[in-house]
């Protein structure tokens, strides 16, 4: 990745300007051309992303059940959320998910990418198989995993029983609900991480490895001294995207546990969804959305700021 995905990065390389500096009519025509190319995307983004975002900020300052007129409450919703212990719980569950999911999916995806980058027979087919879960709907993945992890007759517990291990209750057990969701999520996203890291590996010049070998570096030494540093832009991309998506985990929770049992796997977005469409507390839901947005933004900014220390570009 030569250009990090962040608004703080340089936008485009300096180059010869083709912007006309001639007479007014010519400049006007150029402006119209620019508009013609930009408007098809600018209009939907303004109307359906930036506009609603500002509106959500206003809604978060009101009490509103989606039907009756709004009632302005100032920062009331935020104060209510910040003093409600449930808010801390849903953020904790979300962080639990992110912290459990990220190492599995990154290390697994890296191992896969390294393995499928070697001269392996049928690697195109294997890459396809490992990518299969990525193209599958979350709802399907959740259905299958719920069934595989079924406490009484699920395949996983049947296999564990074969080795004399009594399997846990998985998604029916408050302590195992979140690990169940994490396993299913990591399984699904391995292929996505793999394909990005694979593209990164292919871009590393082989003569660097030859030089490292000549210096007597073993496999592990080459991994840590050549591969990982040169792969750091891809790693950065994977981390940023995975954290942004991880904090917004919803589909799999909704389909696997619906936040249960007893709210053990209730995450932030599940809570936003319930507040809005189950309890009609849209103001609180918007406030919670903004709190989540601020957290995601902070995490992303920290990563962008920190990248200079460990990410090496070309």
């Amino acid at each position, binding site marked *: *990745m*030569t*250009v990090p995905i*962040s*608004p703080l990065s340089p*936008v485009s*390389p300096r180059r010869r300007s*083709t*912007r006309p500096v001639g007479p007014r009519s010519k400049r006007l025509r150029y402006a119209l051309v*620019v508009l013609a*190319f*930009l408007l098809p*995307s*600018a*209009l*939907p*983004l303004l*109307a359906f*992303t930036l506009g*609603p975002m500002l509106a*959500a900020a206003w*809604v978060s300052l009101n009490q509103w059940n989606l039907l009756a007129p709004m009632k302005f409450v100032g920062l009331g919703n935020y104060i209510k959320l910040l003093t409600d212990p449930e808010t801390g719980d849903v953020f904790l569950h979300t962080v639990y998910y992110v912290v459990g999911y990220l190492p599995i999916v990154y290390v697994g995806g890296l191992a*896969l990418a390294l393995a499928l980058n*070697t001269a*392996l027979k049928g690697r195109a087919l*294997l890459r396809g*198989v490992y990518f299969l879960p*990525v*193209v599958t*709907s979350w*709802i*399907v993945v959740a*259905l*299958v995993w719920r*069934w595989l992890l*079924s406490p*009484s*007759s699920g*395949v996983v517990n049947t296999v564990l029983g074969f080795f004399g291990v009594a399997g846990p209750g998985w998604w029916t057990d408050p302590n195992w609900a979140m690990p169940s969701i994490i396993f299913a999520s990591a*399984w699904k996203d391995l*292929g996505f991480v793999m394909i990005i890291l694979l593209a*990164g590996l*292919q*871009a590393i010049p082989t003569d660097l490895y030859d030089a490292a*070998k000549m210096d007597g570096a073993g*496999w592990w030494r*080459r991994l840590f001294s050549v591969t990982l540093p040169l792969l750091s*832009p*891809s790693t950065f*991309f994977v981390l940023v995207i995975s954290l*942004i998506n991880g*904090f917004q985990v919803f*589909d799999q929770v909704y389909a696997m546990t619906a936040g249960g049992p007893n709210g053990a796997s209730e995450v932030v*977005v599940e809570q936003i*969804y319930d507040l*809005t*469409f189950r309890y009609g507390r849209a103001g609180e839901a*918007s406030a919670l*959305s903004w709190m989540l*947005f601020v957290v995601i933004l902070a995490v992303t900014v920290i990563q962008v700021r920190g990248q200079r220390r460990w990410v090496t570009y070309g």
Partner: protein
Amino acid sequence: MADTLRLPAMTKPPRSREAKVRLAGFVVLHVVIIVGALVMFFPFLWTIITSITPGATLTNAPALIPANPSLEPYLRLFSERPFVQVVANSLLLATITTAVQLITSSTAAYAFSRLPFRGQGVVFAIYLATMMIPLQVLIVPLFVELKTFGLLNSYLGALLPTFASAFGIFLLRQAINQVPRDLDEAAMIDGAGHFRIFFQVVLPNIRPALATLVVFSFMSSWNSFLWPLIVLRSPELQTLPIALAALQGQYISDWDVIMAGSVVSVIPMLALYIFAQKYVIQGVASTGIK
């Protein structure tokens, strides 16, 4: 690291200690990677087996080789529910989303790559920032907005928010940045304007990135759950992921029907991925994500 694990020479037996280690690594790697592939594939195998085992339930798991395989669950899926309609709905929405995103992404990408203007950096930063806005922040106001326009419970309401994708714009801009500028300049000398350069020079040169975007756009629409769930309330408008989630509540014990629905939902995406696979790897590799 193509050079760390080379195929040992097949004709000669391994002679040195290093060659033996290499052969052992080679075998271990293959075993691990193939077992891993089976683990990845197993849930799908299980899904297919269950979908052709009538009467399979949570307490009555199917055998790995079904005794009486039958397509009856598929027939029930399509006869008891408007499932043909649901598949058609999803295909329609995904096709329109993909087509529109191809247009809005490629034009914006061209503007950011080839049409310098004052404030371009700021505008692009705002575009990128929309990627960091969770859909959940937008749901309530978007709901109200479309309610105001009378677009709730309509395809247009489901589609409009998907028309522009910052991800797609970013992906294509990276690709266009790599198209040599000499090509534009040669066309310009021949009297071509920006529209002709866009269609005849730039677009043909970013075909891998366009193929990548097709897969990602189609996939995001095909699998999208939250927004269609909220905006499309009538059963006849429902899309595949919502219908599948609803199946689980309706036929709580009919896992054969649910799994048949799952298989049906995976097939079009799988076909599209296989079709675009070589472009996808090429596309990711050529758009600067390395």
